[in-house]
């Protein structure tokens, strides 16, 4: 697994930004200001060892961290329509896409992968915040639809990991429609009584928060992650309200009853494994109610 990160990434960095390497040896914690050596920071999963601040974690590092032995298989995502509106602001959307693809080596802002977690098969749909702020357009929607289909096919739980500012504005109304499309997608998983877990990472806002991301059976957030519908600046400027301390942070949402738990990055994998194994646990075989083959489970429930 690691040949890729060890070999390809440094080489890419050498090509793209040769000057950045020396600067990147030390990172300043944006919360407490401490300087942290890059290897220590990576070992700590980009959590500041001084103040516990969770910095954003690159999507591939996150997948590596979550799957057993860091091993997972990505699936190829269906090609979505490119630039459906022929959108152009100060730049063509197609040019922006080209640049981001060259810089990130990724096709769009979502990765769908499957593998084992605690020995159980799972499907993960993870956002790549480095790709246009993780914004959701057709390609991201197709990614979630594909992830849901794969989960149903593999009879596996689906874990969605949003990291997104919201809609891909350059796809206009089609980005808005992803709110409905992704809702249909995750509902298909839920209908099969497969666990649908959302791991809310920083940030989860706008149309992403107001659709699939808030529909998890269990909602887990990383400490300090910004989660909300309207942007803080929009609220401050249009409504002229003073924002309370910790507004829209994971802990605030926990306090307001909007999520189940806030979990340190170090504990995420173990927490996910535990939640999924509990949800999928069945009663010991002898206690199972044996249904006649033709009997609809709903009717059976009524007759009990």
């Amino acid at each position, binding site marked *: 697994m690691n040949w890729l990160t060890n070999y390809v990434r440094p080489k890419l960095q050498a090509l793209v930004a040769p000057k950045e390497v020396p600067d990147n040896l030390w990172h300043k914690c944006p919360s407490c200001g401490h300087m942290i050596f890059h290897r220590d920071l990576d070992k700590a999963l980009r959590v500041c060892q001084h103040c516990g601040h969770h910095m954003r974690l690159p999507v591939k590092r996150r997948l590596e961290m979550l799957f057993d032995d860091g091993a997972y298989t990505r699936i190829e995502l269906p090609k979505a329509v490119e630039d459906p509106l022929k959108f152009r602001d100060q730049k063509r959307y197609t040019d922006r896409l080209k640049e981001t693809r060259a810089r990130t080596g990724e096709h769009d802002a979502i990765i769908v992968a499957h593998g084992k977690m605690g020995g159980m098969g799972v499907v993960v749909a993870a956002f790549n915040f480095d790709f246009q702020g993780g914004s959701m357009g*057709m390609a991201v929607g197709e990614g979630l639809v594909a992830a849901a289909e794969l989960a149903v096919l593999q009879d596996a739980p689906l874990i969605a990991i949003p990291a997104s500012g919201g809609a891909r504005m350059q796809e206009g*109304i089609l980005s808005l429609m992803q709110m*409905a499309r992704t809702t249909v997608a995750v509902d298909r998983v839920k209908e099969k009584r497969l666990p649908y877990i959302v791991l809310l990472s920083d940030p989860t806002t706008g149309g992403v928060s107001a659709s699939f991301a808030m529909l998890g059976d269990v909602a887990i957030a990383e400490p300090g992650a910004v*989660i909300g519908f309207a942007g803080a600046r*929009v609220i401050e400027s249009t409504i002229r309200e003073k924002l309370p301390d910790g507004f829209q942070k994971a802990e605030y949402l926990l306090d307001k009853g*909007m999520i189940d738990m806030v979990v340190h990055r170090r504990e995420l994998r173990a927490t996910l494994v535990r939640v999924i194994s509990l949800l999928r646990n069945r009663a010991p075989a002898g206690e199972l109610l044996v249904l006649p083959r033709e009997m609809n489970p709903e009717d059976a429930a009524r007759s009990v």
Partner: protein
Amino acid sequence: MHILDFEKPIAELEGKIEELRHLGDGGDVNIADEVGRLQVKVDKLLRATYAKLTPWQKTQVARHPERPHSLDTIKALIEEFTPLAGDRCFGEDRAIVGGLGRFRGRSVMVIGNEKGSDTESRVTHNFGMAKPEGYRKARRLMEMADHFGIPVVTLIDTAGAYPGVDAEARGQAEAIARSIEAGLNLRVPFVAVVIGEGGSGGAIALAAANAVLMLEHAIYSVISPEGCASILWRTGDAAKDAAEALKLTAQDLQRLGIIDVVVPEPLGGAHRNLDLAMRNLGDALEAALKGLEGLDGGVLRARRREKFLEMGRQGLA
């Protein structure tokens, strides 16, 4: 009447007609002739202007303060309207109105964003910007309709969900998500009509329907042109360009396969002839409902979900 910038030449002519009418008192033949001549001119100008409204001009028409809002529409089309209130959880949000009623004979559950039509009612209805309790009420009413097998009709007219501290604290995102989900899961006919402004998540919360109708000059978008301009152009002055780029008009959205029917408006916009606007809307709504009535609940739900899944997959080249 509130005059939009691009309507000023029309308003001037209409002002002249009004003056002449006062002068003539109906008796003077010359004045009557002149009035008739001017009226033809007004019609011509209206027709020419409204035939080629730009997306930015349509945005102005869609937000016209005298445009029929949800309560006007309900008053015109729904008999025995019986408002139902509250989310059974926190409060009653008047930015979303809803209730039972009879539309051309059948019971319906109507749910709509209400912007208000004067200063006082605008405040009462929070300018049409709903909080979580509004979306939770919508969801409650949708589920009630589902329970009784009554079709759901939604009327979309909002700048967007309310961006405020209290709304966030009570779970605006979750409330919208559940409202979308409730709509997608209905086993009754569900028709949404964008009557004015279809703004972002606050709109799709009520619009994941079997059939989405749109008035001819309404708009529907992921973000307001002003918001889009300030983010992508870094200046609100580019709102006109953003309106073009966003493809937010009913005509563009029909071409993109996002909406199903464009409901014609009277010459010069719905606000110029409320009766005709409502008659057109009533006919289109009835046709849409008739196309869905009699279908099995499971089929209605499956088709609705399939329709959104397929959206954007083809026909956009």
